[in-house]
């Protein structure tokens, strides 16, 4: 630091001399094209096109992941029809398989909580856990319920499916018996949950296929309602809440004083919590680094590039530290038991260490990254001085 201060003093003097004389241009403006934004290491001020970052997000990440998810959900819907028509062991396992595939795709969608998704509480209705088992059972029994009520949020979506496919009975045989008896209405509830999920997903997709996409891409300003700020806020919020707290912190008991293994994602399916969290990790890494949803080889302008742009000239890059930390978190997750419930019951310390590793990334996101990009996390609208 000390050395660099003297160095910069000299530079400063030079700059000011430059100003007093014939104003030579000191800054070299280098127009970098997208392909080498990421390895641009020169000391010049590179250009950064915010609008093209937004269109890459919309066209190559957000909409494709919603469509990818919707496709799998449609297949799942067909499987539900098959299963309810013929509730046998084979159809059940097919259904469960497709449930997992769809659930994995969901991990790429959850963080985009804006516009219609936010208005209809998309993420809360698709994946709030733990499931409200009592409520689900009551809904099934009464046949009278409204999925739009917030009290029913934990009685629909993936968590409800988790319970319906794995938790209504201990053994597969008895589960099948429940679905075989139509008078019990389990089959009907399964159908209704699924079609609601499809209905909501279509709404969200329609938004991104409509005018919303253009206004999203055009809103490049730096204020509370502009796209970049909303997206960064959603991303950081998702990382902190949806990813860190919901998947790891809460079940490990970070906020409660004691572990709560029944709070893991996909609790009734038991062995899927790790797979799902790894998928979410990939979704996060891909979004941060601008990796297209449909083709991991396609790179576009990203948060990482944006950070490198404001840090141009610095030797140590924040984006690199973030990627290292994300990788560190992934390593920790990989060491965990496939079944988080078992992991928490046997050795919660590893779960807590995983949480800590993820927590250190939260700090880089919320403190360092948002400072560098000067994006506010709250927008408490008050004066400053």
């Amino acid at each position: 630091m000390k050395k660099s201060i003297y160095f910069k003093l000299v530079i400063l003097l030079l700059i000011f001399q430059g100003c007093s004389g014939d104003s030579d241009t000191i800054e070299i403006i280098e127009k970098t094209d997208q392909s080498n934004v990421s390895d641009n290491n020169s000391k010049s001020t590179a250009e950064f096109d915010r609008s093209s970052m937004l269109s890459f997000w919309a066209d190559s990440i957000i909409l494709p992941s919603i469509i990818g998810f919707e496709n799998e959900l449609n297949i799942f819907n067909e499987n539900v029809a098959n299963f309810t028509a013929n509730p046998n062991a084979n159809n059940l396992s097919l259904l469960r398989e497709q449930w997992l595939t769809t659930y994995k795709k969901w991990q790429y969608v959850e963080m985009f909580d804006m516009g219609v998704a936010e208005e209809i509480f998309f993420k809360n209705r698709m994946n709030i856990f733990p499931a409200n088992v009592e409520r689900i059972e009551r809904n099934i029994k009464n046949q009278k319920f409204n999925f739009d009520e917030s009290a029913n949020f934990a009685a629909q979506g993936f968590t409800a499916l988790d319970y319906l496919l794995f938790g209504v009975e201990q053994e597969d045989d008895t589960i099948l018996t429940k679905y075989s008896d139509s008078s019990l209405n389990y089959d009907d509830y399964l159908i209704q949950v699924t079609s609601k999920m499809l209905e909501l997903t279509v709404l969200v997709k329609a938004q991104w296929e409509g005018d919303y996409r253009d206004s999203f891409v055009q809103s490049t300003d730096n204020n509370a309602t502009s796209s970049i700020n909303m997206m960064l806020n959603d991303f950081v919020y998702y990382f902190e809440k949806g990813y860190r707290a919901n998947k790891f912190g809460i079940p490990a008991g970070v906020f409660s004083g004691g572990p709560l293994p029944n709070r893991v994602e996909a609790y009734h399916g038991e062995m899927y919590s790790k797979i799902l969290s790894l998928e979410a990790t990939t979704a996060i890494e891909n979004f941060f680094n601008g990796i297209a949803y449909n083709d991991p080889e396609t790179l576009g302008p990203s948060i990482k590039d944006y950070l490198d742009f404001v840090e141009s000239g610095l030797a140590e890059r924040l984006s690199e530290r973030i990627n290292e930390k994300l990788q560190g978190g992934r390593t920790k997750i990989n060491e965990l038991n496939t079944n988080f419930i078992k992991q928490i019951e046997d050795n919660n310390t590893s779960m807590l260490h995983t949480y800590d590793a993820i927590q250190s990334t939260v700090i880089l996101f919320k403190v360092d990254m948002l400072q560098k990009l000067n994006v506010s996390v709250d927008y408490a609208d008050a004066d400053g001085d």
Partner: protein
Amino acid sequence: MLTTLIRFWANGWIHTLYIEPEFHFKYYGFSWVTDFGNYTYLLYVICIISSIGIILGYRYRLSIFLLFLLFTYTELIDKTTYLNHYYFTSCIALLLCFLPAAHYFSLDALKKKKTIEAIPSWMVDGIKLFLCIVYFYAGIAKINSDWLIEAQPLSIWLTSKYDIPLIGELLKYKLIHYTASWSGMLYDVFISFFLLYPKTRKIAFLFVLLFHIMTKVFFPSIGMFPFIMIFGATIFFDVKWHKNILLHLHYLGIKLTQKFDFLKSKLTSKKSITLFKPKKHVLPIFLTFFFIQLLLPFRYFAYPGELFWNEQGYRFSWRVMLMEKKGYTTFKIKDSVSQKTFYVDNTDFLTPFQERQMSFQPDFILEYAHYLADHFENQGHQNIQVFTDSFVALNGRSSQRFIDPSTDLSKEIESFKHKKWVLPLEDEIYGL
């Protein structure tokens, strides 16, 4: 002032800042100040009425006194909202309490049919001196390595203002950041001298206009401050200038002119001057005020460590726009006997604005830690200890741990003493 208050109300800030929060961060020694729930609006009503009184010059003494008291009171409710320009407003209001500012061109004067044409010059000079102090101290506070050599925090702030029409695209260049930093510093340090010196006054005022309008363009969120300073700076002009403005005002409205006819004649004549004689205690009060004003900003010398980091002696010192600080602070509640721990969700207790301010200011962190300790004790938890997991980034540096994680904050007591549990900044900032 009136605009400030109305703006405050219109933006719904009374509610979000004073009534909504479950708990308020108090100034040390002012923990007795509280909000009155919805009656807080009443405070504002009185403030608004008094500021109208001041503008019209109606019952001036009472108005300014009420305004000073109540405005200061609202500021004391929660230090989260501390702003230098609110403090500035309070100080000016205090000084104005002792000035006969409504003895000319006012309803009071109209009523009494008499005016005072002259007051001892030291009274107006007092206001001038105060403005000089504000500028000068703000200026020398900028003489530090972050501001001048790293061009921080302006580098961060200006780069992110890319959306300002026309000039936005230029704001990413380092040269602009350095120019802004250096000229800002030079402006603050020297402007008052140029305003004081009659020959340079007009030019200097032009700079005042330019500077504050620019800050308003770059940082719209600084609110009314630029306007307050621009109007404040007119005090440097002599009596004639102000009288001329008043005369121009007269010509604008006929009714006004008629009523103030007797004033008009006086505005133009130079005879029959009545001198205002302040009470004896006023001069000592002024002197004490300035004595405190001159010394208070330097109180940070009494503390070890980096001022920007520890913020011990940062407030009330005219340190404006010097820091871009972001923090992330979570609290761990521990039962010292059972060793059980859990983390607190800050959003359960704090508004987002409070959480942001709390996360990088040691006194806020301590006060909140005590609040949490009390809260959980009342819930029946026992043997409570409060630890923090706190990270802060300052002026573009990487974040580093802020509070010693092994300190049980529930055992630490707020005072003016140095807070040893704030870990030192792993870097050095040179300068004043």
